[in-house]
């Protein structure tokens, strides 16, 4: 077991941010450049090269913001952009923003390079030069106050809200107490929790903002005609969205809420934040979050170094850029899928340990992961990501309370 009192060493970026991984991104700017990007990255997986991208050809401010935040994330050290050439994405601006953050960046435009093979060759030749550079990244001491930790649940069942989620809530309380930054989301899964959550806001005005945000989410999902609920939730014993919400909400713990942010906003002081993932205005592009990885990607775009992912049915996903710690709520699922899991919270169901003990285990796992030790999903090579269309207004002046 990792000694949690040892000094943690992270990676220092020129913009002052500190990472716990040293990832080189290959980022495609339209689906048409996805295959070429995957081919460029494939031989260099072990060198920390990962692929992310946005598939759409039409421009979208939200998608641009997410891509910019992913490419300048503290866990990312350098970026290769891959463009087909005729898509609407503003690749010049993205390259400029990455450069301004002090990270090396190169752009391969497939149509200018002369097609697939030449683009792969050019991309790989740049990667080779940058991999040797990245090894020299300055190491720097990191503390808990430098870390941003996000949480999400996926493949929930009726054990999630009894074991893993409240255990994460206790971990969140300890993180906030120790000056880390913690982010929770899933505003579509707070149905029936309004009163409690509003009362936790650091100011009355923030409480009002959160109330608007939750009402917006409830309305949005009602128009969609489908709550944030899947068949597997019901198979696992959850009967209604209220019941699922109750469990999901417990991940946030009991700390005071310091702010309400939107995807890609990075909190600039420690505390607990609610990430509003539901678009503003009339529904335009469909479901707010089409799957768990879209939420994880947005949490990472808001600066998360580590994601605490609770599951009852048994999700296997991880993520590009930031490690995902998998906390299994259901003891039967853990027995079946233990190689995909980092923590067995299902033991609580069998009266073998307390929630407090599991929360300590999660806390230690965060420190261990921050020290560089790979999580189960990292070990298995998981690097999922999803970026899609959304519309947001900027947050108002009452949303951040220092």
């Amino acid at each position: 077991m990792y000694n949690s009192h040892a000094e943690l060493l992270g990676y220092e970026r020129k913009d002052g941010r500190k990472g716990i991984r040293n990832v080189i991104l290959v980022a495609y700017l339209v689906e048409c450049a996805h295959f070429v990007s995957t081919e460029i990255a494939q031989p260099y997986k072990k060198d920390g090269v990962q692929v992310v991208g946005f598939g759409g050809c039409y421009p979208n401010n939200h998608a641009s913001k997410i891509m910019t935040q992913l490419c300048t994330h503290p866990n990312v050290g350098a970026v290769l952009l891959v463009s087909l050439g005729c898509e609407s994405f503003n690749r010049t601006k993205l390259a400029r923003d990455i450069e301004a953050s002090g990270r090396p960046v190169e752009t391969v435009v497939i149509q200018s390079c002369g097609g697939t093979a030449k683009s792969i060759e050019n991309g790989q030749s740049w990667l080779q030069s940058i991999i040797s550079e990245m090894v020299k990244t300055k190491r720097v001491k990191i503390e808990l106050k430098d870390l941003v930790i996000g949480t999400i649940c996926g493949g929930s069942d009726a054990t999630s809200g009894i074991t893993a989620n409240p255990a994460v809530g206790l971990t969140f309380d300890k993180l906030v107490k120790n000056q880390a930054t913690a982010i929770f989301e899933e505003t579509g899964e707070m149905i029936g929790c309004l009163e409690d959550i509003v009362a936790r806001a650091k100011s009355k005005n923030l409480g009002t903002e959160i109330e608007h945000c939750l009402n917006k989410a409830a309305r949005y999902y009602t128009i969609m005609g489908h709550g944030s609920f899947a068949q597997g939730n019901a198979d696992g014993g959850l009967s209604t969205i209220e019941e699922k919400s109750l469990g999901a909400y417990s991940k946030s713990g009991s700390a005071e809420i310091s702010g309400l942010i939107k995807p890609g906003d990075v909190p600039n002081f420690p505390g607990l934040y609610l990430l509003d993932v539901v678009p503003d205005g009339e529904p335009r592009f469909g479901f707010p979050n089409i799957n768990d990885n879209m939420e994880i990607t947005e949490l990472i775009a808001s600066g998360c170094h580590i994601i605490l992912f609770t599951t009852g049915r048994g999700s296997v996903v991880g993520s590009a850029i930031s490690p995902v710690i998998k906390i299994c709520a259901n003891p039967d699922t853990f027995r079946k899928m233990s190689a995909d899991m980092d923590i067995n919270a299902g033991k609580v169901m069998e009266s073998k340990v307390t929630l407090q003990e599991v929360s300590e285990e999660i806390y230690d796992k965060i420190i261990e992961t921050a020290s560089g030790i790979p999580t189960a999903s990292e070990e298995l090579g998981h690097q999922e990501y999803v970026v899609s269309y959304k519309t947001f207004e900027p947050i108002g002046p009452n949303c951040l309370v220092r």
Partner: protein
Amino acid sequence: MESFKKLIQLSDKDNVLVVCRDIESGEVLQLGSENYLIKEFIALGHKIASRDIAFGEAIVKFNVAIGSALRDIKRGEHVHVHNIKSDFIPTYIIDKGTDV
């Protein structure tokens, strides 16, 4: 091996109890001085009624209403999507074939 609890009450106002492992039809579960005869298979994490619940009554878990009864539910009976409903957004079930 079977030393752990089979049934838990999450909050004192709840009218449902949670089973801590898969329960076979015919098993009798004990909680405090109460005995519950289970007449169907109930999977880990699912709920049973801790008392008779009337049609329209709120289902209470963790001290919070999580929906309402679609019909009368007998003490010890499985409480799930077949006999309760959401008071917010209907629960999606694949077999019903609903689309969005």
